[in-house]
């Protein structure tokens, strides 16, 4: 634990941090534009099936720190003062010593085979939370518990249900993304070579990963409102003014995320800053009503942008144009981007991007409108999407006693792909690892070493932790790999069933993390960092840095992108007792007991005597106490 640095008379803690951090090597550190900066982007992309993919990204940077700084305390003075960075997040990071935080709320399913990969890295239905926590003082578990409970309160979600029975610590997946960005070496190195101990910077700080997901958590307005509150301009100005919950939640896919990580500000990664990325991803089905593929911003969101967020350094709308084959000029984009259309790649890999700088556009006009119209309202021929890796996981068998899990992973690439498979199975499904079998293109594989290079299995413990199966795979080119494993379903205690017992239990998704060559040229590739490329290209910074990076990677030839593929969540029905039966039993038992007990108690406790009337009179006159009075009452009852 560091000592608190002396309080200096500086306006912002962040500036102080910059000053302290910068002092020893002042000459080599690039000068930052501002200690805090906010960028907002909206990416729109028409998808092949008539849907429109929209991705809002709000990035807030705060302060800088040196190599061995981390967010454990006041040393960096990072969280002493807040301008743009939301205080609620800052305090959470500070008090639970969170190095990196990723929280995603998702509704609906991402259709990989139709839509390619999303720009936001997480797309599993429900809520996903993972964080790298500082383990200096071995308080990770308390901190994790505190973190889930606090976030639960902040986002009005049931995150507090991420308890020990759900939390896992993946060994290969979910490496820290911080310090992996366009500047530093790609995480591919860490990913393949030192995957277990892959704190891919030279820091010696002990960190621990905690991962948890709630597959059945519904996402709605009450989660969106606190999310919007984290933005500097809220939803009053800028692209965030498009966020209307009525439209957003009537989409085929909706995802909302908060990512916090540290990023490098220079090539050697001596200066770092903390980055908060908030994203909203929504896929609008524009062809739902009339079959027309035309769309406009006001049609999608029922709102329009009238001013850019004054606090934002950049405010852009980026349109990833559809790639049609054969026929030119099939569609018209109104208005035409003032800076023209950027093109990248050629032939099948050609990508065209139109960029609108709202700061400039809204300086002249009152509102920003954008629409895309197809000739004949439907595209004639759009380049088909063939995502590099598609996964499908499903239950086999029927009945409530046993079942099986089957996972199909298809590699559509023309080269071998390294991937990591992570599956968390709740403890009430008893996996039998000896039944684990692998099929490659329909044939059972004997030599599994070739395919499964590493395998971690954490057996479940009843009522305390889930089973975790994690594998480092080498997927052969153009292949279909299928895993199957059998399990028994546990007979739960009756109190462990949910109120909707007959619905069954949700089993969360499996996650496949893969390094894909950037040949498909999808916008989704590279996740958040790819968008950063656009941003930096605009800033004129990217050229030089890219060149340096390319030189570093000469031997690697192909640029690679790390993507995560999420499978659908599953529903498993466990043996369910007839819950009306206990009710019947309780009712009947109570009735019998009340009838029986009452009369028997009465019979046993009462004292029946036959007495003569005169005697009674005499007795009453002679003694006359409370005792006899009670008795007398009984007697009269009896005689009557």
């Amino acid at each position, binding site marked *: 634990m560091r000592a608190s640095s002396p309080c200096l008379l500086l306006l912002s803690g962040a500036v102080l941090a910059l000053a302290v951090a910068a002092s020893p090597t002042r000459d080599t550190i690039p000068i930052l534009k501002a200690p805090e900066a906010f960028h907002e982007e909206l990416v729109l992309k028409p998808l092949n099936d*008539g849907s429109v993919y929209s991705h809002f990204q709000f990035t807030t940077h705060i302060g800088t720190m040196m190599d061995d700084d981390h967010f454990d305390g006041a040393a960096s003075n990072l969280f002493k003062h807040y301008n743009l960075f939301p205080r609620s997040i800052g305090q959470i990071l500070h008090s639970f010593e969170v190095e990196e935080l990723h929280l995603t709320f998702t509704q*609906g399913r991402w259709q990989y085979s139709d839509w390619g990969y999303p720009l936001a890295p997480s797309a599993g239905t429900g809520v996903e939370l993972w964080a790298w926590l500082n383990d200096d003082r071995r308080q990770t578990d308390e901190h994790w518990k505190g973190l889930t409970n606090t976030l639960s309160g902040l986002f009005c979600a049931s995150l507090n249900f991420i308890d020990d029975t759900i939390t896992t610590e993946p060994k290969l997946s979910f490496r820290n993304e911080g310090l992996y960005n366009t500047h530093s070496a790609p995480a591919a190195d860490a990913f393949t070579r030192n995957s277990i101990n892959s704190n891919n910077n030279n820091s010696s700080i002990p960190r621990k990963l905690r991962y948890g997901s709630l597959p059945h958590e519904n996402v709605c307005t009450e989660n969106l409102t606190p999310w919007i509150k984290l933005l500097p301009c809220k939803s009053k100005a800028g692209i965030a003014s498009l966020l209307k919950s009525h439209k957003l939640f009537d989409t*085929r896919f909706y995802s909302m995320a908060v990512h916090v990580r540290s990023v490098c500000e220079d090539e050697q990664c001596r200066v770092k800053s903390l980055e908060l990325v908030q994203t909203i991803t929504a896929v609008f089905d524009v062809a739902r009503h009339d079959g027309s593929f035309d769309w406009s911003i006001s049609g999608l969101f029922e709102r329009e942008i009238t001013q850019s967020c004054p606090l934002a350094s950049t405010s852009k709308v980026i349109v990833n144009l559809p790639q049609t084959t054969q026929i030119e000029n099939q569609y018209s984009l109104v208005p035409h981007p003032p800076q023209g259309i950027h093109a990248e790649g050629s032939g099948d890999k050609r990508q065209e991007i139109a960029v609108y700088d709202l700061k400039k556009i809204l300086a002249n006009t009152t509102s920003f409108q954008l629409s895309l119209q197809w000739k004949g309202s439907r595209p004639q021929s759009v380049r088909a999407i063939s995502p590099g890796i598609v996964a499908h996981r499903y239950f086999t068998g029927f009945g409530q006693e046993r079942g099986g899990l089957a996972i199909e992973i298809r590699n559509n690439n023309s080269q071998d792909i390294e991937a990591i498979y992570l599956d968390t199975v709740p403890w009430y499904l008893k996996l039998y690892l000896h039944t684990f079998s692998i099929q490659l293109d329909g044939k059972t594989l004997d030599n599994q070493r070739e395919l499964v290079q590493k395998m971690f299995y954490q057996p479940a413990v009843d009522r305390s932790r889930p089973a975790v199966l994690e594998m480092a795979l080498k997927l052969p080119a153009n292949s279909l790999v299928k895993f199957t494993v059998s399990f028994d379903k546990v007979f739960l205690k009756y109190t462990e069933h949910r109120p909707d017992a007959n619905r069954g239990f949700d089993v969360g998704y499996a996650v496949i993390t893969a390094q894909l060559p950037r040949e498909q040229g999808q916008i989704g590739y590279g996740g958040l960092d790819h968008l950063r490329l656009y941003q930096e290209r605009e800033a004129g910074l990217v050229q030089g840095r890219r060149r340096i990076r390319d030189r570093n990677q000469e031997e690697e030839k192909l640029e690679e992108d790390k993507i995560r593929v999420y499978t659908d969540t599953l529903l498993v029905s466990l043996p369910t007792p007839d819950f009306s039966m206990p009710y019947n039993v309780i009712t009947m038992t109570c009735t019998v007991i009340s009838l029986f007990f009452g009369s028997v108690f009465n019979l046993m406790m009462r004292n029946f005597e036959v007495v003569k009337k005169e005697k009674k009179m005499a007795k009453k006159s002679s003694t006359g106490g409370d005792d006899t009075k009670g008795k007398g009452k009984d007697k009269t009852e009896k005689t009557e």
Partner: protein
Amino acid sequence: MGLLSRLSKAQRQQIFGRFVLSWMPTLSYIMVAVSFFWLLALPHQDYSKRTYVSENALLPGAANVQFSWDDNLAAEAYRDIVQRIAYSPSIERAQALEREFAAIGLKSATQNYTLNTSTESLHGVNTYAVFYAPRSDGTEALVLSASWLSKDKTFNINAISMLLALGKTFKRGSHFSKDIIFVVSDGEAEGLQAWLKAYHGNEEHTHERSEETLKVRSGAIQAALNLDFPGTGDYNALGIFFEGVNGQLPNLDMINTINQITMGIAPVELTLHDELVPYTDNMTKNYLNSLRRMLYQMKYQAVGTPTGNHGLYLKYKIDAITLYGIDRPGWNSHRFNLFRVGALLEAAVRSLNNLLEHLHQSFFFYLLSDVRRYTSIGLYMPPVIILGVSFIFQALSLWGLSGDLPIELESIAEGRKDIPVALPYSRRSRNFKVASTTMSMAIVTGAVTFHLLTTEFGLMGETPMLKLVASVGVCSMLVLSAVSAAHVRNQIIRSASTVQKARAAAEKKGNSSSSSNSNSSDKSHSVADQELTPAADWIMLKTLILALSALIVTTLSALNFSLAVSMGILIVLPYMAFRPSRWTIVSIAEALILLVLSPPGLMMVASWWYSKDPSEVLSWVLREYEILGTWLLPTACFIYWPLNLAAVIMVLLPVS
């Protein structure tokens, strides 16, 4: 009382026990009568209740229906397409449908399957498409299915075009919480079965059965509606078919939901199966109609054949019913077209979509006397249990009496005091060897016939009828050998016992002078004699048959009530009443009746009743077993036939 008071306690107990035993047969006949009357009373109005929607989440007919005239036009356009491709080869029409579903915007695919039964080779291609409900997590799904061949062997054109039109309608909505899977299965039942197997990851790739793995999938199927709307015209009424494989039934709420919708949002005439009965006030006619409907249900359940493709879902714990469009020209009711059907189906799907949990509220065991009246398990279970108990009573009384020494009964009746009190161990020994051997031989024979019928056991390529003849031959060989062996054995024993008796008589003569109480010693001698000669083999065999029948009827009643009842009714009287007679002609008549009740006999009766060739009936049974896995053939071969064989042997055994 006078007689009883003079006897010791042990004697009194014995007499009481014997009294009960001797009354048991009568009691069991009374119970059979009670059971029969109870069963006949079930269709009566007073024994059934009105159905009601038990699962509150269903809210049938509460949602606004969006199926419009435009959708109706779309359905009619699809009808033309389906009609055009109906006569193309399987693969072509499947691919055409796949394209149509894809054009709507659904993920669609096809599935090949091959099924080689002992008599035929079936190959087909299924088409299926998944509507991914927007905003849902895809853990749950509903299925709408239609097979290319309708129940009446014509093309199911309206149903398939309805699936396409509904796909288009559903695509517009964002209010679905469950994915909807559209399945157009090839053939009749085999296509859907192949699809269901593959959906649950149980696909096989053997020579007999091969199912292609599914490419598109969704979550756990919660409920399914199977559509059967043959032809291209309008319909008079809507029929509900609900009996599944081996008498399994869907949750009654499935039927209640449709019922509720046809009374409100989509008014059509609704009936059970395809029975159209005019409304009547007449009590007797009403009763007879109810009885007939109930008998229909029990027939389907007992035979175990599903009345539609919905029956295949039930095995996977998916509640499903078939909706059948009844086209009966001349029937006096408002005819309805695809528009009405579309509204009905959309309302039904919206209602099922409301489900929060798997259907579990309403009844899974019921008899329907009308589409709006049901009889619950509490009312219909007692008669079959009573039948089972009557079997047990008969068996117990036979068992008890078989151990008695008949002479005691006589002496008690004479009121003699000096009779030797029968001690618990002074019983007639029961020789169980013959009975148990016969029974186990019968069961083995049953197993052999089953294998003769199902596998190509040295009868490759032969017709099923030849196999049946072979198995009947095996059975008759068993009967002949068992009966003749028993008779021969009886002869030997009899001759041996006459020798013994002669010897005993000679001994008695020698001892008579020294004996003081000749009479009592005579009695005690005869007691000893009786102890030596065990009860007749037929008694033991009959006891065994009756006990086994009780076991089987009561066990089956929990699995398939109708099968248990029909089996019980068939066998209860013959098995209880028949016994070998001193007159051979009576025994032979009994044996003949039992032969009529044997599986081949019943098959003949059925073929006569439906005026079909017996070989057709047999190949139908075989086909049902091989394709759908119904229990009819195994039950007949492993349970019913062995009992029947044993009974035939029993009546032909020697009396003594």
